Each structure stands twice: as structure tokens, then as C-alpha cells.
């Protein structure tokens, strides 16, 4: 249906996207509206935004305030921002037994590498599902999604046995290694994300492929130089989703990683509050606040792709 329409992937920062702009008419500028109309048309939207925004944000504000409050539990800081001190942050970063900075670096590394590889593997698979016709295509896509539904937390023993086996052949990618953890995460690369990409790939017209073929390009070159650039938005989206999923993953990471300096944020922070006789909620709050920042930054940066990118391709 939208085969001929150029894909609008820019966000809404520029002039509003409506057909008037696309077809050359002067952009529609809204005149100042009378107040009652404003309330009816826009005011309620602001109200909704504020209410839902508060709902979305107050636990996070709460954690922020708890992180500035030395001493206390997550329930004791009921007066928001009762005290303001950076003690918790200082203590967090200066604990030699709990190298928070190392955890941070690990998590970023693992997250980014996993995201990049997931995107790449997914793109390869999505491309083949989208462009090529082969037996088992439909069933294949469906089964990819279904296979990923296995409750992984109960498969922990199997994962441990697998990694132990790998350690015996390639210790560098086995137990207690970050590469091993990345490999396990890549086992989940083909799944719903592939479906999302498949949908988006479908919107790239096949005529582009054909034109390139006639010009003499091989399939690999078509894929890498032409198609990937066109589907950049969905790649950004999947990358972000994968990054978020990886950085908050906890169960498998705690099975695979052992040495204190190799832990990820999720595993390390959990240790602050898991030993009953040794909990430290304020520092945990500080750690959690810092942990949320990169994801937020990444999200802000990729936002424009996401808005247009997620399902633009799925509607045919």
C-alpha cells in the first residue's frame, strides 16, 4: 500500500509531517486558538501528560531522593529530598571489594556488543526471510518466535552445563567470561526482533534490489551497502531494545559471572541488598540511579528513529 511513498523516518522535530508538506503546499501553521477550544483540543492532552508523567516518574524520583540520603532503607525516605549529600555516591565508587566502575564498564561493553551483534544477526536473517523464498519460510519465522518463549530461568542448570563444557575446550569463552555471556545472549538474537525487522525490510521495495543486480552487484554487496542503509531506523530500534534487555538481565549473568570485577550492574547491585544481615539500600539506590543514565541517554539519542521505525514496515 505504501510502496511508492517514501518512508518518513524523521521524528517530529521538523515541520509536522502531513501530506501538505510532502506535496509542496505551504506548511500548515495553527493560528492561536480561543481558550475553550484550546482546552478541548490540547489542554486535556497536557493534563494527561502530567498525570501519567507523574505516575511514570515518581518511583524514579523516589530512588533519586533515596540516593542522596545516607542511612536508611528504601522505605524510610518518605520525605523526598530530606537531605542532600553525595556520600552514597562516593562510597559506591570507592569500595574496592565492589568495583562499581568495573561493573559499569562491563555492562556497557556487554550491552553494546550484544546489541551490535544481535542487530547484525537479526538483519541477516530478516533479509533472507524478506527477500528470499524457500521452504519452511513461514514456519521458520514463527518457530523462531516460539523457541524464544522457553522460560530461561528454569534452564539455568542446562546453561551451566553447556558453559562448563565450552570451558573445557575454549576456556576463554566459557564460565566466568564476558564473551561467554555475550554468546549466550546471542542465542536469543533471532526472535521477535527478527520479526520486527522482517516487517520493516518488507517495505523496502524489491525494485531496488533488482536495479542493483542489473548493475552487477552480488547479493552480499546489495545487502551491506544498500539495504542496511535503508533500514537503519529499525536497526537502531532493535539495538536499543537489545541493549535494554541485556543490561537488565540478571539470572543468567549471575550464573555465568563469578569474579567481582567481571560482574554486571544488575548482578553487582543485587548483592548490595541480597544478604539479609548486610543490606545497604542507600548505596543500592545510588548505584541504580547511575545505572539508569546510559539507557536514558541512548534512548534520547535514538528517539527519532524509534518513533518512525518500530512498525512502519509492518503495515503493508
Amino acid at each position: 500500500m505504501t510502496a511508492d511513498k517514501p518512508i518518513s523516518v524523521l521524528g517530529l522535530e521538523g515541520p509536522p509531517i502531513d501530506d501538505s508538506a510532502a506535496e509542496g503546499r505551504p506548511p500548515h501553521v495553527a493560528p492561536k486558538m480561543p481558550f475553550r477550544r484550546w482546552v478541548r483540543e490540547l489542554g486535556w492532552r497536557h493534563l494527561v501528560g502530567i498525570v501519567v508523567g507523574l505516575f511514570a516518574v515518581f518511583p524514579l524520583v523516589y530512588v533519586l531522593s533515596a540516593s542522596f540520603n545516607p542511612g536508611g532503607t528504601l522505605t524510610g525516605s518518605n520525605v523526598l529530598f530530606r537531605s542532600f549529600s553525595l556520600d552514597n555516591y562516593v562510597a559506591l565508587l570507592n569500595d574496592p571489594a565492589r568495583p562499581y566502575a568495573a561493573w559499569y564498564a562491563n555492562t556497557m561493553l556487554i550491552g553494546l556488543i550484544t546489541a551490535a551483534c544481535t542487530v547484525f544477526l537479526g538483519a541477516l536473517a530478516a533479509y533472507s526471510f524478506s527477500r528470499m523464498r524457500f521452504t519452511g519460510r513461514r514456519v521458520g519465522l514463527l518457530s523462531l518466535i516460539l523457541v524464544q518463549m522457553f522460560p530461561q530461568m528454569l534452564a539455568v542448570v542446562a546453561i551451566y552445563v553447556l558453559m562448563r563444557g565450552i570451558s573445557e575446550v575454549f576456556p576463554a569463552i566459557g564460565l566466568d567470561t564476558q564473551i561467554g555471556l555475550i554468546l549466550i545472549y546471542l542465542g536469543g538474537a533471532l526472535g521477535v526482533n527478527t520479526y520486527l525487522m522482517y516487517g520493516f525490510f518488507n517495505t523496502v521495495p524489491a525494485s531496488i534490489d533488482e536495479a542493483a543486480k542489473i548493475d552487477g552487484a552480488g547479493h552480499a554487496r546489495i545487502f551491506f551497502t544498500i539495504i542496511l542503509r535503508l533500514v537503519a531506523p529499525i536497526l537502531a530500534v532493535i539495538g536499543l531494545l537489545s541493549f535494554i534487555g541485556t543490561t537488565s538481565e540478571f539470572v543468567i549473568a549471575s550464573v555465568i559471572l563469578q569474579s567481582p570485577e567481571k560482574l554486571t550492574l544488575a548482578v553487582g547491585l543485587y548483592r548490595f541488598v541480597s544478604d539479609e544481615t548486610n543490606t545497604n539500600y542507600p548505596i543500592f539506590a545510588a548505584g541504580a540511579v547511575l545505572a539508569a543514565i546510559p539507557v536514558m541517554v541512548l534512548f534520547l539519542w535514538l528517539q527519532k528513529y524509534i518513533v518512525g521505525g518500530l512498525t512502519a514496515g509492518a503495515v503493508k
Partner: protein
Amino acid sequence: MTTSTVTPQRQRRASAQLPSTRTLLLKIAMLAIVDAAAVFAMTLLFFQENWLVLGIAAAVTLLVNWIYLSPGVLPAKYLTPGLIFLGVFQVFVILYTLYIAFTNYGDGHNSTKDDAIAAIVLQNTERVEGSPVYQVQVVEGLGGLGLLATSPDGEALVGTAEEPLAPLDPAAVTFDGGRATAAEGWTSLGLQDILQRQQAIADLQVPLSDELEDGFLRTSNAVQGFVFQSVFVYDEAADTMTDTTTGIVYSDLGNGQFETEDGQVLGTGWQILVGFENFLYPFENPRYGEALGAVALWTFAFAILSVALSFVLGLFLAITFNDDRMRSRKAYRLVMILPYAFPSFLAALVWLGLLNAQFGFVNEALFGSADIPWLTDPWLAKLSVLIVNVWLGFPYMFLICLGALQSIPEELTEAATVDGANGWQVFQGIKFPLLLVSTAPLLISSFAFNFNNFNTIYMLTTGGPRISGLSENVGHTDLLITLVYKTAFEAGTGRDYGLASALAILIFIVIATISAIAFRQTKALEDLN
């Protein structure tokens, strides 16, 4: 677009042109690296005599080479990397879990039969009452490893596993401060040798005399030796374990443990295959059965409501902020996304604190110190869990709907408006169906994810206020997956991985079937479109 008058044949030839030499070299290099790694691994596996894995590795390597070196098979070339990871780290995991489901692996059945026998004997080796402490020196002679022992009154004795301790002529023995350190005809082992043969030395049992009842000498630190008596004796021929103090004979009745006919069992057992026993557990265990119905119902309700509520909220927000006349919509959007940016288990812990009935922020600050039992009243607990899950999930739905709304072409809306439809009718008739079609697979995956959403539930309520009236320890907010966890790991009979695996597989089958059916429906929807 160029109108192509090229014949199909010419097209095919064009696409079958050889790739450039650079690409070819690159391909060969990468393939070579993979092959080198595979050969390396296979060599190691060969020496470890791990034939099964070796065979699989060889087959896969050959297949990969064939795929990338043959001219055609394009789909395979693109799918192979991802599929390899999927196969090793997902499919294998599922298959291995399936294997465990057929065993009784768990507490009391931790390892092999040999390990169990060794453990039972070791645990039941008692020091003989009132026996003296010997100073020992590990030695080696013609008969193998032995102990050169000095008794408390200074007598030097030597013996091996076969030869009981026999006194030595003092002249043939070198003493060092009251401890015999060397003897003629025997080589004393130095520290390095002892370290190399630790296990053999620790296992060494030198009979004290020809009488078995006198016990044997054993050392655990190569310096001191104590006299022990084995309480449990394993008879290999009869495959029985006998308790010499009580005379009871335990035999292997095929249940992976040593037991007597009237039910006395030795705690340490071993893994065996138990067939379908674990899979039949929910059907054969009446107590579990009562709990199962209520929990299954709640699990479906929880998953469906979570997805539906977050979808509705997300969609509502997407529509609200889709109006280009709002200038601050970017800011609102950012705020809406924040919950998704926060690691989910951290968020669960935070909500746990917020919802504390007496001290939590929600009750103190928002409800004026009311004591609303958010997490301890059965219905409120269900509500709280849903609210937290919606809080965690609505940003994702918001994003999806925002994107989906953008991609619905304006022409359709305009056409409908021209035809006289108002906003709501446009939404109902055009936007919503299109939206559903495009987001359906995501909704189904979300449903599957929430069906198995262990972390959120466990962290908030550990399954929730206990359902009174049931003898099983099941709560009002337990999902099937938390129920499996409790049944397999917290039921009081120890951790039963076999049972957990079997139940996990059953859940997987249920959820996969439902999802597959749901997908078929959406395909039908798409075709209708």
C-alpha cells in the same frame, strides 16, 4: 525505476557473476578462521574422548563450509550465523532441560552411583574411640604407597594398603625429633611428590592389623594419621551397602538410592532416568492439582490484563501525543519512556518499598498515612502486581503505537473524513484494525513474556498472600512459573531439578501452542486486510 527489457536469462547470468576478488578473499579468510577454531576444538575433544560432541562439531563444520562454498543456497548463507547461536545456546538448552526432566537430578541424587558409594563410605568412617594419634610420613615401596607411622610411644611401623602395619627394626629407621622420617627399603616422598599424588594419599588406608575390626590408619594432611573404622561397607558383588553397626543391608532397588524393603533410605543417592514420572506429577499429585487450577487462571488473567492494560494506556498516550499542535510533546514522550529505561528488577525492589503498608511512600504521602495493605490483601496484591507490571510495560507499548500510528497513511483518514466519519469512527474502523494487525505479534510475545514473568512477581510478593485452605504453600499472586519454582525448589523435599525441568517444559508447550494459534489468527487478519 528503470524499465527492464533484459531477458530473464541475462538477469540470471548477471546475478551469477563472480564477486570481486576482495570479497572472495574476505570470505575465505573468515571461513578459514572458523575452520581453524573448529579443528582446534575437535583435536581437544578427540583427546578428551568426547565422541558425541566431536561428531556434532565435525558435522556442523562440514555443513557450514558447504553452505558458504557452494554457489547457491543463499537463504542458508544468511541464516546460518544466527541459527548457530540459536542452536547452541537456545535449542541445546531446551533439549538438555528435556533430558534432565527425564531424570531425578536434585538433592539426594546429585551425581553418579560411584560418587554416591564413595561419599557414603567416606561420611561413615569413624575414628575408633580412644585410638592413638600417629605421626606419619608418606613413603613408597615395592608394594606402592605406604605410611611410615610413629606411634605415641615412639615405635616405628610401616604398612601399605595391602600389608598391615608392621613394626620396623629401629636401626633401619631415621628419626627426626621423635618422628620417623625414613626407613630402609622405602623412599620418603617429598612435598612435591605428595602434592602431585594428593588424592591417592588421602584415599590410602593402611590396615592396623590382620583383623578388620581394628580399623585402618589414614592421613588427611600427610603429617598425622588417625585410626578409622568403616561403618558402611559396600559389597560390589551383591551391590549392597551394609551398616556394620546395625547389620542392616541396603540395596539398590532401582530408585537411585540405597534402601531397604521396609523403606529405610540412605540419604545420598545418585541420578537415574525416571521416565515420565516428572511429567505426570501434576496429574498424579492431588494437592498440587487443587492449587494448579487457581494459579493457572490467575496466570492467564495476569498476562492478558498486563498486555491489554499497557496496550490501552500506551495507545491512549500515543494518540494523545500524536497531535502536531502540541509543542511539548517531545518532553512528555521522554518522561513516558523513563520507566522502560530503568532495569526492571531494580524497579520491582523500589516498588516493594513504596507499597509497604505502613512505611511505604504510597500510603504515607499519597493516602495520608492510611494502612492500605497493598501487598498482603489477596485482591489488592493482585491489583498492585498488575499496576507495577503496567508501569513497567506501558512505555514499550507507547513506543510501538506511536510508530504504528505514524505509518498509517493519511489518505485513508482523509478519505473517511470526507465520507462523513467523525474522529471516533475513523479510529474504530480504520486506525485500530490496522494498528492491531501490525502490533499483533508484539502483543503475543508480550503475553508470553508476562506469562512467565517470574522476577516481578517473586520480588514483589514471592507469590503473594498465602491462599488459606490449601495445604500447599501457594499464594494469591503465584504464576504457574513461580508455582513451578516453589514446587521444585521449596517444597521441603529438597531441590528437584528433574521436576522443575519437566514442569518448565509443560509450561513451554502450553504457551507455545497458544501463541502459535494466536499467530495463525493474526495471519488470517492480515489476509483479510
